[in-house]
Structures are given as structure tokens and as C-alpha cells.
């Protein structure tokens, strides 16, 4: 059912005629708490939701990371004894599921939520309640996916869950049910989030901000949201088919009924390949903000970066079968998809060139964020180039399902996606919390991660090319070879590297902890930044901007601070961030009314896991869940679009009047 945020009632007076405190809507009243746990649980503020997304994602990063460490412990030596075959298979399945769906995607959503409205000069997203709903839905999905650990074992089919191995006969525990239904739920979060953010970007830009004046991060996130919008329904179909087979006896992947197992593979990868760009493009966006700031230069070739981003998004739809080169598609399909896959290196190469050229001729400051950004360029290139070697289909038949693939995708995912996210942490921390992460610790964090990551995933290239398949709970010395390149030695190196890497991540957590405790306040514009999000206080006020800025330039903020001397052509600072903020405060919009919190998003989201549990265990429970959903939907559509005035504390501006912000 479409969920529609409702604006103010038709014809209702803009100022509800001095409502008395006794006038309530009963259960349909909107909550108004601005402090305490209620202010978080019922919030619809994109910044609070962004932070909550971040916290949840970080939690799952540690979960996924510990799973990875257990994997590496098991594989450090031949015939590992740490995990049984059964548990090992669950471990890598859940490691990947957790990292992909519960860490990178939500973390990217965290940044999108927090920074898109700020970067485009908006006060919130287009549908704040849907935003809150998306977050709680993600939490529900994450819980369902992981609950299986405690209820008879997690999913054990690998993260792409090929049928028929994931079917009811071959994976008899409930793990796959939890997995499929949990991901179905997180899919709802992604889909609603995508719609919300696309509308936000298209409709809520500050005056003057044409699409080609939008910050690159926002642009690439827009591409990501389109990818999600169209990719999520495909995995939805696949997951439904799987669930219906497992829970209702459908025959979709039952070979004895004549099913074709390749059906699942196609559906999964039609989703799966766009998905990998969903994982990487937000990080590309982040470093496209970080590199210019610390180079004191605009992004080189902004339109090329934007269009190549869109091109990646588009071509990404035509390459899915490169994951199936060994599946027996027949030479024609293989050839077509092989060539198409090569094509995708071209727009990606454009980005690498642009980043490098952004550095070129700049005035580079090597902050922690900059370290991660430069690290991304290098590490992603390694991963991208191994990707190109996969795209050569005949070679890929030697590589697929070996550790060489594992090396590829950890370079692009860890060296790419995660380095980008870390660049984002260091770059935007002062904005989000008003405090700066420690730079020295940050650089140590970087170096441990770089060294650890190369030690962990670098050797996997060799291990893989020498023929060690992936997803093996044990490997044998009999096939490890001898000499410098023997698989045994490098497996050990990889395992040691993983712990160095983990230590690097630990340094980040320590950094966060220390920063939170410290009293030191960050300067308003610590990096001499270029985009709108820095044109407000840190952390931003609830309404983001006192006055919505009018945009004249790409990198508006920078151009307000600097001007070119017409004679010497030198850039001269003409204003500081403080000046600009002061001016904004002086011209503050008087009547700012933010959307009220709401009870319904979390209630609605809470119904979904109940349905999932019901499908697995007992249909009546599912009906209860559905009832919660329906009730919540009615509550949602009937609650007033804002809390009555009397429920608010007097506005800080001292001006008693309020205007309905044009927000749902």
C-alpha cells in the first residue's frame, strides 16, 4: 500500500485558532518530546535518524567483523577446528549478509539521510515519517536475519543463496526462512528510503540549486536511490519465490518438478550487480567531496563525474550474468555479458582520472579523511582491475568461486566502500557532533586498516589464482603447493592481517569514545569546506538553516568565502564561515515549523517482523502482525499533520507565530 504523507488539511486555517491544551486527538495526537528516549524513538528528524542509522550499522559492522575473524581463525591453518562445517557455512553467509545489507547499505543511508537535506539546503526530507519508518524497518529486518542464530541456526547457503541448495530439502533449518524474510523487510526500508530521497533531491533543493549545481555526494546518492528503486523489486520477487517454496510448498526451484535452478541466479544477480554499485557509489560520492576540500580545488570534471555515475548506474543493469560465466548460459550470452562488463570499466575509469586530476595542482592537506580518500583511489583501482580480469569470461572460468574473487570484492568493498565511509566519518564528524575526531588516532586507524587490509586480501589473489576455492570450511595441505607462494603460508598471513585490520577498526572505536568524552569543541568550518552543509551550526539546528540560502554556484559555500582577485588571479578569502553564519542568523526566517514526531512509523515497522515470525512458525501470529500493520496505517493517515501548538514549548525565536513548514 502506498503510504502518503499528508500535508495540512484543506482550508484549515494556517494558524490553528489558538488551540487549547485540552483539545487532543487521543491516540492520534503527535508526540512532541524533544529530549529523552522518546525524542529518538518517535523522531522524524532526518539528522537523528541518520545518527541512529549510523549506530545500528556500526553495531552490525562489528558483528560482521567478528564473523569474519572467526572465518579467518578457521582458515589460518589446514584442517581448521574452530568451527564445524555447518557453523562455518552459516558464518560466511551471515558475514556477507551482515556486511552488505546491515552495514554498508545502512551506513550509506545514514550519510544520505543526514547530509542530503543539508547539502541541498532543505530543512528535512520530503517524507519525514516514511524516513523514520524506513529506519525502524531496517532494525526489524536486521533483528529477524540475526535471530536465526538463536533459533536453530542461521542461513547456510552463501550470500547469493543459490537454489536448489537453499530449498527446503537441502537447507532444512529455519535459517534461510529468517534470511529471506529479514531481507524482504530490509528491502522495504530501502525502497521507501529510495522514493523519499529521490523526491527530496528533486523537490526540496534550495532556490538556485539546479541539478548541475548539486554536490556530487547528493548526485551519486541520487543514482544509488534509483538503483535501489528498480533493483529491490527484483530481489523481492526472488525472495518471495524462495519463501513460497520453503513455506507454502511452491515448486519454483524444485528440479524434480521441472524447475530451472538458473531462474534464481538470474533474479538474484539482476538485483545483485546493481547492488554492488549501491554499495560503492555513496563512497565515491563521499570522496568526491573530501578530495576537493583537501585539495582546495573544485572536483575536476564535475559533469563527467556526474554523468559517469549515471552511466555506471545504467550500464550496471546489463552485466548481471558475469556472475554466471560458469553456469552454462551458452556462448552467446556469455560473450554479450562479457563485453558489457568490460564497458563498465570505462565510466569507472573516468572517476579515477577525475580524482587524480583533482589532486593534481592542488594544495593537499593530509588529514585522516584525505588519507582514506586517497587510499580508496588506490585500493579500489586494484579491485577494479581484478574485476576487469573477471570480465574476460574464459579467464573467469578459472577464477570464479576461488579466493581470487574474494580478493576482488574485498578490495572494492573494503578498499572502496568502507574506506569511503571512513573518509566520511572523519570528514563529517565535526558537522554531526560538533567535535573533531582525533587526527593522530585517525591516521593510525588508517595505517592499521591499510596494512591489515592488504595483508588480509592481497594474498587472496595468489591463493585464488593457485586454485583455492572459496566457501571451504577446511583446506588441505595436500593441495597447498610449496615454495614462496604456497597457499598455507599466505592463508596464515591473511589471518594475521585480519587481526591487524580489526585492530585498526578498534582504533576508530577508541577514537569515537575519546572524542565523545572530550570537551573540545570543533571549529565551525574545520576543513575550509565547500558545500552547503557547512553553512550552518555544528551540529545543525533542528531546522538546519536559519535562512535557506540561495545558491549561485557549484560549491556555493566556498564561493561565499573566497573570491578571485581580478588582477592577480589569486584566490582571496573574503569571509569566514562565522561571518556567513552570522549573516544567516541575522536574516533568519521567522516562522519555521518542523514536522512533528510520530508514533506510527515504529508501530508500522514493528508489525513486519511479527508477520515474518508468523510465516515461519504459525500463521495466526502473522495475522496479528498484519493487523498491527493495518492499524498503524490508519493511525498514520489519520493523525494530524502537526501537533497542536499548545503542545510545544515556546519557540526559541521568541516570536509566537508559527508557520507550517511545507513538510508532511
Amino acid at each position, binding site marked *: *500500500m*502506498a503510504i*502518503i*504523507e*499528508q*500535508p*495540512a*488539511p*484543506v482550508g*484549515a486555517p*494556517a*494558524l490553528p485558532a489558538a488551540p487549547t491544551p485540552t483539545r487532543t486527538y487521543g491516540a492520534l495526537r503527535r508526540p512532541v518530546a524533544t529530549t529523552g528516549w522518546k525524542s529518538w524513538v518517535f523522531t522524524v528528524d532526518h539528522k537523528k535518524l541518520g545518527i541512529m542509522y549510523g549506530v545500528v550499522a556500526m553495531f552490525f559492522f562489528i558483528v560482521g567483523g567478528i564473523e569474519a575473524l572467526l572465518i579467518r581463525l578457521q582458515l589460518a591453518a589446514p584442517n581448521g577446528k574452530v568451527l564445524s562445517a555447518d557453523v562455518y557455512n552459516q558464518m560466511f553467509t551471515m558475514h556477507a549478509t551482515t556486511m552488505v545489507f546491515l552495514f554498508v547499505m545502512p551506513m550509506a543511508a545514514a550519510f544520505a539521510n543526514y547530509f542530503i537535506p543539508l547539502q541541498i539546503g532543505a530543512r528535512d526530507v*520530503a*517524507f519525514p515519517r516514511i524516513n523514520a519508518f524506513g529506519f525502524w524497518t531496517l532494525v526489524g529486518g536486521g533483528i529477524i536475519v540475526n535471530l536465526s542464530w538463536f533459533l536453530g541456526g542461521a542461513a547456510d547457503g552463501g550470500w547469493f543463496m543459490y537454489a536448489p541448495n537453499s530449498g527446503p530439502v537441502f537447507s532444512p533449518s529455519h535459517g534461510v526462512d529468517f534470511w529471506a524474510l529479514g531481507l524482504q523487510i530490509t528491502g522495504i526500508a530501502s*525502497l521507501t528510503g*529510495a*522514493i523519499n530521497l*529521490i*523526491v527530496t533531491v*528533486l*523537490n*526540496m533543493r534550495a532556490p538556485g*540549486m539546479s541539478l548541475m549545481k548539486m554536490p556530487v555526494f547528493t548526485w551519486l546518492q541520487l543514482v544509488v536511490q534509483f538503483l535501489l*528503486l*528498480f*533493483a*529491490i*523489486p*527484483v530481489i*523481492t*520477487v*526472488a525472495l518471495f*519465490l524462495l519463501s*513460497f*517454496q520453503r513455506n*507454502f*510448498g*511452491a*515448486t*519454483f526451484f*524444485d528440479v524434480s*518438478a*521441472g*524447475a*530451472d535452478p538458473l*531462474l534464481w541466479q538470474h*533474479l538474484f544477480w539482476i538485483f545483485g550487480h546493481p547492488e554492488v554499485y549501491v554499495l560503492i557509489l555513496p563512497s565515491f560520492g563521499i570522496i568526491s567531496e573530501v578530495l576537493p576540500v583537501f585539495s582546495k580545488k573544485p572536483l575536476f570534471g564535475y559533469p563527467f563525474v556526474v554523468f559517469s555515475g549515471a552511466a555506471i548506474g545504467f550500464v550496471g543493469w546489463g552485466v548481471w550474468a558475469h556472475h554466471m560465466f560458469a553456469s552454462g548460459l551458452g556462448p552467446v550470452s556469455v560473450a554479450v555479458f562479457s563485453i558489457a562488463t568490460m564497458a563498465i570499466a570505462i565510466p569507472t575509469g573516468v572517476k579515477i582520472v577525475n580524482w587524480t586530476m583533482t589532486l593534481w595542482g592542488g594544495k593537499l592537506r593530509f588529514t585522516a579523511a584525505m588519507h582514506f580518500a586517497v587510499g580508496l583511489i588506490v585500493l579500489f583501482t586494484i579491485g577494479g582491475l581484478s574485476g576487469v580480469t573477471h570480465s574476460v569470461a574464459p579467464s573467469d572460468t578459472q577464477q570464479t568461486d576461488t579466493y581470487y574473487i574474494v580478493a576482488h570484492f574485498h578490495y572494492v568493498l573494503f578498499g572502496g566502500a568502507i574506506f569511503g565511509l571512513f573518509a566520511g566519518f572523519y570528514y563529517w564528524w565535526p558537522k554531526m557532533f560538533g567535535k573533531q575526531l582525533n587526527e593522530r588516532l585517525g591516521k593510525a586507524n588508517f595505517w592499521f586498516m591499510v596494512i591489515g587490509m592488504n595483508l588480509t586480501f592481497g594474498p587472496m589473489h595468489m591463493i585464488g589464482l593457485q586454485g583455492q576455492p572459496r566457501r571451504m570450511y577446511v583446506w588441505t595441505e595436500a593441495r597447498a603447493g610449496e615454495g614462496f607462494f604456497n597457499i598455507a603460508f599466505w592463508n596464515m598471513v591473511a589471518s594475521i592481517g585480519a587481526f591487524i585490520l580489526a585492530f585498526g577498526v578498534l582504533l576508530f572505536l577508541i577514537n569515537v569514545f575519546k572524542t565523545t568524552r572530550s570537551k573540545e569543541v570543533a571549529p565551525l568550518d574545520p576543513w575550509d569546506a565547500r558545500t552547503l552543509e557547512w553553512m550552518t551550526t555544528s551540529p545543525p539546528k533542528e531546522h538546519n538553516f536559519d535562512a535557506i540560502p540561495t545558491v549561485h554556484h557549484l560549491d556555493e559555500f566556498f564561493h561565499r568565502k573566497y573570491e578571485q582577485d581580478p588582477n592577480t588571479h589569486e584566490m582571496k578569502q573574503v569571509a569566514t564561515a562565522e561571518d556567513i553564519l552570522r549573516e544567516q542568523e541575522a536574516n533568519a526566517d521567522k*516562522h519555521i515549523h518542523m514536522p512533528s514526531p510520530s508514533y506510527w512509523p515504529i508501530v508500522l515497522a514493528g508489525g513486519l517482523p511479527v508477520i515474518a515470525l508468523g510465516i515461519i512458525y504459525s500463521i495466526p501470529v502473522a495475522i496479528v502482525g498484519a493487523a498491527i500493520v493495518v492499524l498503524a496505517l*490508519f493511525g498514520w*493517515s*489519520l493523525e*494530524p*499533520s502537526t501537533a497542536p501548538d499548545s503542545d510545544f514549548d515556546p519557540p526559541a525565536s521568541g516570536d509566537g*507565530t*508559527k*508557520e*507550517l*513548514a*511545507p513538510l*508532511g
Partner: protein
Amino acid sequence: MADTAVHHAEHGHHTSTGLSNNKLGMWLFLGSECLLFGGLISTYMIYRGRVGEGPRPGNVFDIPFTSVSSFVLLMSSLTMVLAVAAAQKRDDRGTTLWLTVTGLLGATFVGGQMYEFTAMYNEGLGYTTSLFGSAFYTLTGFHGVHVTVGIIMLFSLVAIIKRSNVPGDKAEVVELVGLYWHFVDIVWIIIFTLVYLIPA
């Protein structure tokens, strides 16, 4: 000042593109739904001939019957568009009338589908009988659920309008439900041809 803000909110013109957030969101959702139904239809296309021991599509389809119910659904699009037109004229009575008719036509369609399913089941095509059965019921079932959700939205809207309680722009809400309803109709246009009229 405050007045204009509300006025703008009402017509959804305060946005960068001048388009309503809600309507943009609905179209995005419908774009996304194309990939959902595309997947289900494609799955059916691959599996429609895989009938195992069970009946073949040609054996269980009752084309005249389905033609009638398709026609009913098609005509509900007309009544829906009349409801939207009425809502835009701020004609509450007309709106509720046409919404009700649309809902009833939709309910007729769903009823017909239930009858059809029962008949097919009795002819030996269960959900688990064959790939054809699984794919057929999943595809048409998904469509049926969409219609049902639409019916619930229509009748809820009628109830809410009757209590003149619609938060926001009434005409827009009716229009949005209308978009959804028409979409469900065009999906059936495709299903009717690809699934029923073109035999495996």
C-alpha cells in the same frame, strides 16, 4: 505569510520542480512496481509450459469468464477517473459515489478471481501441483492482492471523505489512489493477454 505557505502545501507547488511530493513519490513507486510484476510475469513465462502431471493452461482457463472480469476491471478505471474528476471539482458526493462504484467493480473482479481459482483447483491445478500452478497463482495472486489493497484504500477514502476528515488535499489523495488503481488495471491488461489469450 503563513497563509501562503499552507496554500502552497495544499497544491504542492512549494517544491523545486513545482510538482507535488506525493505524486512524484507515487510515480516512482509505480516505476518500481514495473520491475516487480516484470519479474513475476517473466517467471510465469518460463514456467507456463512446465505442467508435470497437472493440467495445462489451456485446460483450466475459462476465457469467456475471465474476459468478463477483465472488462469489469477495465471499466473500473473509467469510474475511477470520474471520481478524480469529481474530486477536482470539489464535488464530494460525486467523488464518494464514483469511488464506491470503483471499489465495487474491483470487488467484483476479486470475487471473480476467487471463483476462478476455486474452479481451477477443482480441475486439479493446486498451488503445488506444478510449476505452472505455482507461477500462475503467484502472479495472479500478487495482482489480486494489489487490487484488494486498492479496494481497501478506496473504501477508506470514502469513509474519510464522508466524515470530511481528509488531511491534506482531497483531490490529490483521490488522484493518487487513482494512479495506483489504473496501474493495477494496466498490469491486468498485460496479464490478460500474455497469460490468458496467448496459450503456452
